[in-house]
């Protein structure tokens, strides 16, 4: 069997045919302009939502892009802010979180089943609240580009929720190390991740010490930390900055690890320093006091300043500029990004001292981004698919648990990428047979209003309710058992067609027109067109 991919050109042709020949619903007044607006909403954000498409129509694409590049000027809706304010763990400091984790771990060791239950409750509360904070913003925040960039950088500087202490630190990491810098200077972002205990713990640098260092502290988690660990130093160059082909050697990895010895955090959160929210610590005793030779340069010993200097060098390196430019062009334009665009973005990065917003503006202004061939050329990741579905369906969300469960089933659990390369955003990573079935299953449940998204979040049984709602018999008996207030009304297919019109092919429109009314919205969300953006 050979695979004949449906090319961009063919898709465009079919789309044009669909608009001309098929009158399933009212075609938008200005299909060409709407196609551009939908493209921008698809790439700068998580797809069209009813109010937002109107907003772009009103102010025009260029002004919309300008707005998105300045999220600080846009307030969050009061109702979203209230939902976010209700998430207590999203205000805790690094020290509080480390302290709570230690307390729960101790209880789990000493207090038997009750202690273990306490620890599970902490894990679950933080997992749910961090998921709720991330997804509610992605679905409802008008600062869509900021949300896209938070996700982008989180994957770039990935940390895995499943590793020990990072269970509790993951949301703080995103809040303090990623979000504030997502459109700022790359050096600030790099520095924030390098100092955050979630990263230091995940890639083991918190243990890394000068070769031959003898730990003096009796007991404690750092007692066995008697030498070098090159895990973070390697990924810092390979994934975070230079890229795997950035021209460094194994020697450079080891030397950078020596430079970063002593970059750790206080695992007992003992040194109470009310003025500092950070648990980062530079432990001079663990730092390798010798000179180093790194990336062809002699590095004279000067304690923590060596590491800061190394981050300066990495952030300003042309290989870093190229690596980041490639990743951005791949995320925003095409799985195989045009080399000329990558070069332009890399130059812009170097010319602006690593200003992320400046690089993004160049990207959004580029002919490659605006080319009609770029529209719908990317296959959505599970995250993009789930978030954009809820936005297009215009459903109120009080509770993201059914969405978190869906992301796990689709192979993209939130904060659950175990390896430091983060989730990829290419078709090759996500298009597979099982994904088709599961996306359609989700689309069918969502479109019929069966997901208990409106159920209050503190209801402990909501997970079970989500399972029931996702079962294939749900539209017979089980749906009736869901209290009406928890389910949603079935999605209005005409509103959705008005929103997504320019992106739907003739085949999709025909299939929707011929289907029984209760399945029409599911077909739109489960269509090949909606799985692209």
């Amino acid at each position, binding site marked *: *069997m*050979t*695979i*004949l*991919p*449906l090319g961009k050109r063919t898709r465009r042709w079919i789309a044009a045919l669909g608009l001309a020949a098929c009158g399933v619903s009212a075609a938008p007044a200005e299909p060409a302009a709407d196609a551009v607006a939908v493209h921008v909403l698809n790439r700068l954000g998580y797809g069209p939502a009813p109010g937002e498409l109107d907003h772009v129509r009103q102010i025009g694409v260029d002004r919309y892009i300008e707005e998105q590049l300045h999220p600080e000027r846009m307030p969050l809706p009061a109702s979203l802010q209230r939902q976010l304010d209700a998430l207590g763990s999203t205000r805790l400091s690094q020290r509080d979180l480390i302290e709570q984790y230690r307390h729960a771990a101790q209880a789990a060791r000493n207090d038997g089943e009750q202690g273990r239950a306490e620890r599970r409750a902490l894990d679950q509360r933080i997992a749910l609240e961090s998921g709720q904070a991330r997804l509610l913003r992605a679905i409802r925040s008008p600062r869509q580009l900021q949300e896209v960039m938070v996700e982008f950088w989180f994957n770039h500087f990935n940390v895995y929720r499943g590793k020990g202490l990072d269970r509790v630190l993951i949301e703080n990491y995103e809040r303090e190390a990623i979000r504030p810098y997502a459109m700022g200077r790359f050096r600030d972002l790099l520095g924030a991740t390098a100092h955050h205990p979630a990263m230091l713990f995940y*890639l*083991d640098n918190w*243990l*890394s*010490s000068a*070769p031959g*260092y003898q730990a003096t502290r009796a007991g404690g988690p750092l007692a*066995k*930390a*008697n*030498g*070098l*660990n*090159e*895990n973070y130093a*390697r990924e810092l160059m*390979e994934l975070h900055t230079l890229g*795997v082909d950035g021209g460094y050697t*194994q020697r450079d*990895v080891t030397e950078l690890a020596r430079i970063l010895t002593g970059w750790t955090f206080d695992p007992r959160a003992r040194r109470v320093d009310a003025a500092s929210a950070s648990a980062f610590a530079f432990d001079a005793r663990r730092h390798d006091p010798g000179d180093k030779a790194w990336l062809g340069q002699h590095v004279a010993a000067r304690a923590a300043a060596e590491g800061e200097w190394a981050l300066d060098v990495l952030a300003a390196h042309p290989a870093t500029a190229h690596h980041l430019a490639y990743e951005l062009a791949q995320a925003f334009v095409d799985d195989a990004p045009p080399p000329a665009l990558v070069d332009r973005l890399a130059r812009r990065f170097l010319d602006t001292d690593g200003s992320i917003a400046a690089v993004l503006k160049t990207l959004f202004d580029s002919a490659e981004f605006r080319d009609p061939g770029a529209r719908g050329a990317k296959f959505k990741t599970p995250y993009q698919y789930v978030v954009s579905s809820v936005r297009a369906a215009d459903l109120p969300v009080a509770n993201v648990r059914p969405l978190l469960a869906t992301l796990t*089933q689709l*192979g*993209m659990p939130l904060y659950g990428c*175990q*390896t430091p*390369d983060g989730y990829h955003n290419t078709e*090759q*990573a*996500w*298009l*597979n*047979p*099982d*994904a*088709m*079935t*599961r996306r*359609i*299953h989700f689309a*069918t*449940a969502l479109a019929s209003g069966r997901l208990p998204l409106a159920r209050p979040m503190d209801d402990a049984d909501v997970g079970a309710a989500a399972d029931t709602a996702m079962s*294939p018999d749900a539209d017979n008996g089980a749906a009736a058992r869901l209290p009406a207030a928890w389910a949603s009304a079935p999605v209005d297919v005409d509103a959705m067609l008005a929103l997504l019109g320019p992106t739907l092919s003739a*085949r999709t429109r*025909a*299939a929707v027109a*011929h*289907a*029984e009314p209760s*399945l029409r919205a*599911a*077909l739109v969300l*489960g*269509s*090949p067109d909606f799985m692209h953006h």
Partner: protein
Amino acid sequence: MLRRHVLQSAAAFGAGWLPVGPRAWAAVGATARAAQRRLVVVFLRGAVDGLSVVVPYSEPAYYRARSSIALGRPGADGGVLDLDGRFGLHPALASLLPAWQSGRLAFVHASGSPDTTRSHFDAQDYMESATPGRKATPDGWLNRLLGVLPPPPGGRAGPTRAVSVGPVLPRICAGRQPVANIASGSGATKPTALDRPRVADAFDALYAGDDKMAQAYRASQQAHREMIDTLRGDAPDPDMQAANNGASLPSGFADDAARLARLMRNDARVQLAFMAVGGWDTHANQGAASGALAGRLQPLGQGLAALATGLGPVFDETTVIVMSEFGRTVHQNGNGGTDHGHGNAMWLLGGRVAGGQVHGRWPGLDASALYEGRDLAITTDFRQVLAEVCERHLDLRDAQLAEVFPDAGAIVAQRLGVLRA
């Protein structure tokens, strides 16, 4: 031995290298026979510490390099399980010892990729494309292998001839041939909305084309139906229950391995399978007889044992290859862990494996023998092992081997004898 010589001597006898004996396939043509053989590849992502799996306990240098994480000699408390007087098996893999003793488990030590990268992601990519050093290769070797397999008895191959377990399709399966993937865990056999005929009819119309997504949609529907037919209501295999002492299976991998075994045993259409297990990147506190690495190895061993038991008679015609992107440093690091290294051990399980042996040339752990002064050297290219299995187990010919392993050149002409003649 060079394969050319085998070919010549085989031609001289005019019979190919058919096994002669009670299980000989004398009456079956080579093509039909190969079509009944199975291959399972298990990839350990994150670089498992091969020196803790197949432990060179007879080398003093091993103990010098690993003051707190070395495993004891056979007979010591928490010591290794002796394999051949030179090497010992990690005690957490005791569930695999019977396979070794019955000649169905072998290792190829000091094997790996000739590419020097210590990046997990590049190294995995190269092992899955089987073109080390070349990133532009669009497909994975398992997909290319699927493309050159002789047609199954009865004609056209369906989309479940190759199956990957998990929610995404890995690089090794990427390419022109359709490969089905099945969910990990119990989700594999749960009904979905598409099991309702009216929903299926509506989406069938939407995905009636011949593009990539329509093909994925149809492959998914067919694989799902086969899974349901084969596994739904299927009581857990009594052999498996016995193998696990009646206890529930210990981990996701063992559970998935048991399910895959049932599928392959009951459905002859499934010929190639892939699974991946993560969590081997033990930079800190990896432990020895117990600890983090032992805690990962134990369910892996139990899962592989469950796979062998669950395949039942099909195990005789199955080869399981366990591989990882590279090994880890010979010396432990400052945190009781190991960093990224070079050479590793490949594992081979199955009824046709020349088992009970550690294959390959062992370069030793003396300082002068180490790769870049720190890592186990590589004396066997991983493609040599794969090619040998493809040739001897699945009856691939020279031209087909060249398609599956395009850059390997003379490497695939060399033979270690990892399968029984």
